[in-house]
C-alpha cells in the first residue's frame, strides 16, 4: 500500500466547478474557508475576485470558474475558498481559490492516474497534472503552481496598468 508516501503525494482534495470534479494535492492545501466577504481590488482581471482577511494577512482570492473560462456562478452556502500555498519564482505565496463546493479527500495510487489528455478538455493542458480515475468518473488533477504561473501574474500586471 505504501501508506507513508501516500500522505505526501497520493492524497487529493476534490472540489467541484460546474459539473467537473477537480483535485488538488493535499500538500498544497492549507485550509478550506467558508465563503466570506471579499474586497474587490479595482483594475485587476475579472478572475481576481479580490482580497480577504486571513487571520491578519491579506490574501488574494481567484475565481477558478472565470480563470477556466467557465460561466460565473452565484455564490451559495456551498461556495468555499480553498487556501493554497503556491510556488512562485521559488517563493511560497498564499492564495485563495474559489470553488463551488468541496467534495472529499481522495486517495489515488499512481497507477490510478493517467497523463493529461492532449485534447478534450476546456483547460490548457499545462494546468493539468493528470487525470485521476475514481470509479467511473475522472478527476482533473490541477497543477496549481502552473495555474497561477508567472505569465498569469504578468497578465494581472498588464491588465492593471
Amino acid at each position, binding site marked *: 500500500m505504501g501508506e507513508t508516501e501516500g500522505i505526501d503525494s497520493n492524497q487529493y482534495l476534490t472540489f467541484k466547478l460546474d459539473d467537473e470534479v477537480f483535485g488538488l494535492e493535499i500538500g498544497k492545501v492549507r485550509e478550506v474557508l467558508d465563503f466570506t466577504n471579499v*474586497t474587490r*481590488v*479595482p483594475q*485587476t482581471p475579472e478572475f481576481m475576485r*479580490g*482580497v480577504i482577511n486571513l487571520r*491578519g494577512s*491579506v490574501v*488574494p482570492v481567484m475565481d477558478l470558474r472565470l480563470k477556466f473560462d467557465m460561466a460565473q456562478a452565484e455564490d451559495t452556502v456551498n461556495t468555499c475558498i480553498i487556501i493554497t500555498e503556491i510556488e512562485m519564482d521559488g517563493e511560497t505565496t498564499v492564495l485563495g481559490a474559489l470553488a463551488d463546493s468541496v467534495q472529499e479527500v481522495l486517495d489515488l495510487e499512481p497507477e490510478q492516474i493517467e497523463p493529461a489528455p492532449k485534447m478534450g478538455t476546456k483547460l490548457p493542458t499545462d494546468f493539468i497534472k493528470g487525470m485521476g480515475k475514481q470509479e467511473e468518473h475522472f478527476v482533473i488533477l490541477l497543477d496549481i503552481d502552473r495555474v497561477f504561473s508567472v505569465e498569469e501574474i504578468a497578465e494581472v500586471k498588464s491588465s492593471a496598468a
Partner: protein
Amino acid sequence: MLDQQKEIFREEAAELLSDLEDSLLELEESPEDMDLVAKVFRSMHTIKGSGAMFGFDDIAAFTHEVETVYDLVRNGEVPVTKELVSKSLAARDHISSLLSGEDIDEARGEELVTAFQQMVPGQQPAAPVETAPEDLGYGLFDDAPVEPPAPVAEAPSANADATYRISLKLDRHIINTGTRPDGLLRELAELGPHQMVAHTGDIPSLDQLAPEECYLHWDIILTTDQGLNAIKDVFIFVEDDIELKIDVIDDGEDPDADVDYMRIGEILLARGDITQQELDEILGQNKPIGQKLIDSNVVPQEKIESALKEQEMVRAARTQRKAQETATSVRVPAERLDYLVDMVGELVTVQARLSQAAGMREDSELVAIAEEVERLTAELRDNSLSMRMLPIGTTFSKFKRLVRDLSNELGKDIELKTSGAETELDKTVIEKLNDPMVHLIRNSLDHGIEAPDVRAAAGKQATGTVLLTAAHSGDSVEITIQDDGKGLDRDAIFEKGVEKGLISADAKLSDTEIYNLIFAPGFSTAKVVSNVSGRGVGMDVVKRSIDSLRGSISIDSQQGVGSTISIRIPLTLAIVESLLVSVDNESYALPLSIVEECVELTRQDIANAHGRHLVNVRDQIVPYIPLRQEFEAISEPPDVEQVVITNLNGNRVGFVVDQVVGQHQSVIKTLGRMCKDVKGLSGATILGDGTVALILDVNHLAKKVEQEAA
C-alpha cells in the same frame, strides 16, 4: 555559550567601531579636543580588553598598539595629526575586518602596527599584550604592591554622577558663628548617597570637655550629580571657620572603570593618613593589610573604617552605574522588535473590532472597557513603534567617511555638513534609505561638485560642500541632499531625454519636469563613467527604492549654483492614521496627514463644471479624481458625493468618494505578490469588522490630474 558571547562581543565591538569612526572624524576637525582623544582611547581600551576576554587575541594585540599611542596623546606627549587620524581610521578598518574575519590584510596590519609603534617617542620594542583577565581580588586582604593613586581628574561638571571624598574639620567654636554643624551635615547628605565617618580622636575626657565646642571632624564620601560647586555651596557661610578638602575620587564619566576600586592602603595613602614608607613597611609583613595596619598602630581603627567606607561607596556607585547602563539600554534582536510591532498591529485590528462590536451592543460597561482598551492599545502602539525609531545620524556618520574617502579619490576638496542627525525614523526605513542615499551622495560628489581649479575659475570656494539635512514634517521626514556644485544642465538633460526617446523634441516641459527626467529608467548624464558613481544603477533605481518606502523624491537645481534633492519618507511603514471612505460599496483608506477637508459634490456642481473635473472650494478651483470612474464602479452613485481635498506637495487635489466613513488606525498590509503592481493602491488594511480596506496610493492617482490639467 562561548559562541554566543563572542557574537555579543562582535555586535558591541561593531558599535564601538562605528562610534570610533565618528570620534576620529571629529578629531580630525578639532584635534585639540581632549574629550575626543579620551573617547578614542576608551574605545580602543574597551575593544582590546573585551577582545582579549573573548579570545580575539589578534584584535587585542593589534588594538594594544593603537591604544598605547592614544594613551600618550591623552597625556599630551604625542600630538594629534592628520597622519595619526588617517592611520587610526585605517586601524579601525583593520580591526573591523579582524572582527568579521573577512578581507583580512595581514601585511596591512603589520604595516599599521609598525606605524603606531614608531609614533611612540623613544620607540620601545613592542610590549607584550596584557591578555590576562584583570585582577578581581577584593583588595582589602591583598598583598600586591600598591600602585600610585590614580591622578585626580579635573572637576566633573554637573549632571554626571561623581563621587567625592570630602574631608571636613570645623572650627571648635563654630557655634559662635550661629551655624549648627548638624545642619551642614544634613545639607551635605541631601546632595546624594553618602558615607560619613566622624573622627572622635580629638574628643577630650569629660572633665576637659567644653560642652559648646565641636571636637569632631569627618571624612565624607559623597556621590552626587550636582557638581563640585554644590558641595562648596553648603559651606559658603562658614568658609573661614572650616578646613575643607574635596577630592574627586570617581568622576562618573569613565564607564569602563572597574567596579573594583583602590585598595585600602592606596586610599589611606591618597588621604595622607599614612606615608608610603609606613605602608611599605607594613606590607612587608605577611598579614592581611587591614589587620597589619591596625596591629602596627600607624593608623587608628576609625581611619581604616573610614577608608573602608570610601571603598564601599565607590564600589557601590560604580556598580550602580553599571547596573543603570544595563538597565537603560537593553540589547534586543531587531527581529523581536519587528515581531512585537506585528503583534501590536494585530492588536490594533482586534481592538477596532472590539470597539465596533461594543458600540453595536449598546452596553455601556462594554463600551467603557473597549475605550480603555483603545487607549492602552494606542499607547502600546506608539511605544512599540518608537522602540524601532533610531536617529538618522547613525547613517549620517557613515556618509562622513564616504565623503572623506571619495573626495580623496576624486581629487576634490569636499566637506560634508549635516543637520538634524537626531531626527528619528523607523529602523527599517533607515536601513532601506541607506543605499539610495549613498548613491545620491556619490552622485553629488562625482557629478555635482567641480574640481578645485574649476571651482576657483568660477569664483567659488575651492572646498565644495554637501549639506545633508533631516527634519520631521508631520508624519514624515524630509531629507535633503544639497550641493554647491555646478547644478544640472537643463538643456543637456532635455537633449538626452529626446535622444533616449523619453520625450519628444517639441515637448514643452517645466524646469522641474526636465530635472525629474533623470529619475527615468536608463538615464545617465555622466560622459565618463567613473568608478565612483553609477555602474549600471541609475537614478531610476533610487527613485524605485524611495517609492517602495511610500516616499517621494524631487530635485531642484540651478546651473552653476548647485542642486538640492529632497526626499520625503513616512516615519514608519507599519501603521498610518487614515481617513476611511467608501466607493462603490468598498472601503478605501487614505493617509489622514494629507487630508485638508471634505466638501460635498452635488449633481449641480458636476453640471456646472461642464464635464471638467474641477470643484470650487471657497473660490479656489481644485481638480479632482472621480474614484468611481477610476475604479469602474457598477453601482449608482449617491445624489451627493463627497470630495476629499488633499494637499500633495503643495498641490490641492480632490478625490471624489461616495461617503466619508471616518478615521482609522490602519495597520498596513501588503497586497501580496499577486497584486503588488496594481497601480493606485499602496496596500491594504483590516477594518473593525474583519473586512479588508484598500489603501489608496494618492500620489499615483494624482498624476492623472496633472495629465488632465496639462
